[in-house]
């Protein structure tokens, strides 16, 4: 009898807990005092640990920006390293509050898996890297080439499509991981290696003679990478989405961590004023502090700053902005206005 009561009590308290948890991720996050953020277990430039053991990179920056928006403190993030296999379950089960982990926005993930992609923070696509000594300048001249390819990924399918459309033949060299691909490619077991262009650039940066290799201009797939949250909590999705949008808009309006202090008091541009809170009440609509956008830009930086810090020309990865430039510079980044 006692046992039954115990079980009943456990069940009711569990239900109470689960009801309590649906109150909203933003409230939950505030109550526990930190954001639990899912990151990768290591992708060059996008997510890695520094020598002191802190998570850094292009993706963790998004989490830090959300922490800056919610708490005004980038350190209030706890990271959960997730792998390609555990990431979605970790998010769906509530173990993490948001996922920022090189995740491609696809139809089935968005619709079928019950997740909400809040935007795109990196437009990637599959490309090819080959030796300059091959003497070709385009992937369309790769007829008969041997290609190192990671098995079981969408890249494999994209590759087959590309060669079929262009009527070329190729010889696949199946490999398992990026590190293995690098080794095989360096050892000349394949003519070219194909994976996401950002990965190619990162891999190339580790070669002894990066200049002897060339990334061909053809990008054969769409890989929009972005942060995501659980479906069904629009308030929290808004917070993450507009954190990202603030970073992009800030770059467009020319607001950076260097000049945000000057602009905070007010400026000639009403967009900036609304964003930084000297005009209007955007912060009340989203339920955050008045300084939320200021904190993001001051503590993390605008999109361009973050890009340059981890991926840009001054890093060993040395990626061009390309598609990830603002729409005003011929790229795809276009955030809705702050009004």
């Amino acid at each position, binding site marked *: 009898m006692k046992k039954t009561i115990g079980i009943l009590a456990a069940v009711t308290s*569990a*239900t109470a*807990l*689960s009801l*309590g*948890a*649906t109150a909203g991720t933003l409230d*939950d996050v505030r109550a526990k005092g930190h954001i639990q953020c899912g990151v*990768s*277990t*290591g*992708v*060059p*430039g*996008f*997510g*890695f*640990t*520094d*020598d002191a*053991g802190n998570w*850094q*990179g292009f993706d963790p920056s998004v989490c830090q920006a959300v922490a800056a928006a919610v708490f005004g403190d980038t350190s209030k993030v*706890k990271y*959960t*390293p*997730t*792998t390609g*296999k*555990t990431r979605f*379950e*970790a998010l*769906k*089960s*509530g*173990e993490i509050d948001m996922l920022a982990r090189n995740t491609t926005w696809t139809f089935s993930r968005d619709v079928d898996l019950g997740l909400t992609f809040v935007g795109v923070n990196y437009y990637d696509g599959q490309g090819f890297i080959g030796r300059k000594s091959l003497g070709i300048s385009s992937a369309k001249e790769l007829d008969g080439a041997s290609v190192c390819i990671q098995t079981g990924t969408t890249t494999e399918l994209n590759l087959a499509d590309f060669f079929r459309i262009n009527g070329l033949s190729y010889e696949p060299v199946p490999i398992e991981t990026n*590190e293995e691909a*690098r080794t095989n490619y360096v050892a000349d077991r394949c003519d070219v290696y194909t994976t996401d262009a950002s990965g190619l650039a*990162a891999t190339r*940066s*580790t*070669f002894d003679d990066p200049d002897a290799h060339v990334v061909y201009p053809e990008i054969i797939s769409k890989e929009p990478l972005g942060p995501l949250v659980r479906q069904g909590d629009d308030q929290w999705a808004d917070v993450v989405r507009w954190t990202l949008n603030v970073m992009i808009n800030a770059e467009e309006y020319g607001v950076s961590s260097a000049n945000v202090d000057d602009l905070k008091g007010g400026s000639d541009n009403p967009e900036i004023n609304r964003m930084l809170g000297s005009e209007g009440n955007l912060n009340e609509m989203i339920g955050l502090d008045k300084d939320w956008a200021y904190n993001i830009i001051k503590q993390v930086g605008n999109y361009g700053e973050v890009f340059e810090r981890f991926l840009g020309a001054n*890093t*060993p*990865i040395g990626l061009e902005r390309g598609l990830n430039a603002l729409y005003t510079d011929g790229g795809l980044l276009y955030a809705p206005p702050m009004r």
Partner: protein
Amino acid sequence: MTDAPYQVGQHPDLPPPPSTTGVIGWMRNNLFSSWANALLTIASVLLIYGLATSLYKWGFANADFQGASRNDCTSGGACWALINVRFGQFIYGFYPESQRWRVNLTFIGFLVALWPLLFTGAPARKQLLWYAGVYPILAFVLLLGGFGIEKVETAKFGGFMLTLVIGVTGIAVSLPLGIMLALGRRSDMIFIRAICVGFIEFIRGVPLITLLFVASTLLSFFLPPGTSFDLLLRVLIMVTLFSSAYIAEVVRGGLQAIPVGQQEAANSLGLGYWKTMYLIILPQALKISIPGIVNSFIGLFKDTTLVAIIGLLDPLGIGRAALADTKWQGLAGEVYVFVAILFFIFSFSMSRYSLYLEKKLHVGHES
């Protein structure tokens, strides 16, 4: 002198011919007994020499030990600077630096607790055994905090410390559990036997990696959202269950090797089931099972690297995250060699101890 007559059987022993003794004799017998063997020997020596020298050049002579990034490694050999800079991470994971003494203390305490368990000759063994009994609680408090010391979340556990926590917990808990399962499987009580057989066969029929995925993804769906049932704890439970099923089968093998006469003799002396098991059957069965048990333990210890797949940062996970730092990219060889050395030290000591134990317990039947 040599001509002196001897009685039959009185001649003093002559030394063996010099060509069959000493280093030369040994080499002639073992390395150069025929042309084919001589060729093989020379080829092997050359091969070993070549490997050893290139390894030495790569790992020591041309290696860099200091530096802040890969660019500082200019000698062309291994770049141990990465290991040097991140040694703390490889050992302690993200455990706060100011609190790392607690991990060290736990480890020393572990060695002290191990001493009376492993060696009967330890001084003050009785007191030490008591200490070993309460050690798990001590370790728990030391590592996690509470009772006045700063709390550290298990999410901060990583590196080799994580390997040891998982490995040691799995080993320590799975042995008694495995013995119980083995006894249960041979029990006359049908219900207990059915449960044990079902459990063992289920666990043995499923790969560890599947159980780890269940632990990391599925379990949290059964729990109310918001209640975070610690991931490390879930992994520990799964690893322990997995290992106990294997131990159970190893121990069952030992139990079956004991002649039924032993049991009958114990019964005729009036010993009950538990006394029979404790005094007669298990001591013999476990002695037989030692190689198998230690084999399982070593396997378990190495299997802990699988947790990297569900996002726990064991030494391999730490290595992967470190290699993603653009400062250190492309040093996979160094990381894996280092991790391999760490694992070898522990696995090799375990296997040596098992040999020692077998020799020590080797009192009776030589088979």
